[in-house]
């Protein structure tokens, strides 16, 4: 059984629009990670989040991106003004505090920017 649910499974949006991708952990996770996979390419780290703060972010994670945990449960990734090159699969991967290295990937959200 998956540790995390991601919604929506597929998001289609127009260039310049804002999108919010959601991640709902099932278990008690304290650490959250977002990864991105452009079609046909490898999975890339975007950002890690712990205790309501960004722990680390990659160079991909520019000012257009933001993350938050608004209600203490859901974890969201927002892209403020989408670009064509943002089209990708976005994976949320939470981790329990007791598990130092195991990140449980969600099924992903496919983002299509037109």
């Amino acid at each position: 059984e998956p540790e995390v649910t991601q919604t929506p499974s597929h998001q289609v949006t127009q260039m310049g629009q804002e999108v919010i991708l959601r991640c709902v952990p099932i278990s008690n996770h304290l650490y959250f990670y977002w990864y991105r996979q452009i079609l046909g390419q490898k999975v890339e780290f975007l950002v890690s989040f712990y205790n309501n703060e960004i722990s680390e972010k990659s160079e991909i994670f520019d000012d257009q991106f933001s993350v938050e945990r608004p209600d203490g449960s859901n974890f969201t990734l927002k892209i403020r003004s989408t670009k064509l090159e943002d089209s990708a699969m976005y994976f949320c991967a939470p981790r329990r505090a007791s598990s130092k290295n195991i990140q449980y990937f969600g099924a992903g959200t496919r983002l299509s920017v037109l």
Partner: protein
Amino acid sequence: AQTVTQSQPEMSVQEAETVTLSCTYDTSESNYYLFWYKQPPSRQMILVIRQEAYKQQNATENRFSVNFQKAAKSFSLKISDSQLGDTAMYFCALYMNRDDKIIFGKGTRLHILP
């Protein structure tokens, strides 16, 4: 910089055969973990097997096993008695405690032929 290299972009084997996927990595850290993830056409990332760098014994999960050669920085995945459901992209990945993020290789597309 830490890197993960998968030199086989694509492989095909007959059902029930054994197949080995190659992976090499580079890190200066001594404390790290290695993973193999499976990504079927649904594009979900599924953890297949993991190996702690400090353990000499190779990890095994049913039909999946690894050959971990720490000195050579090699981490190959062996799939025994391959099944049609094993058809997927397989990603080798490296996690270091210091960075707290996963670095992926470019993947190997594996086709199991009936």
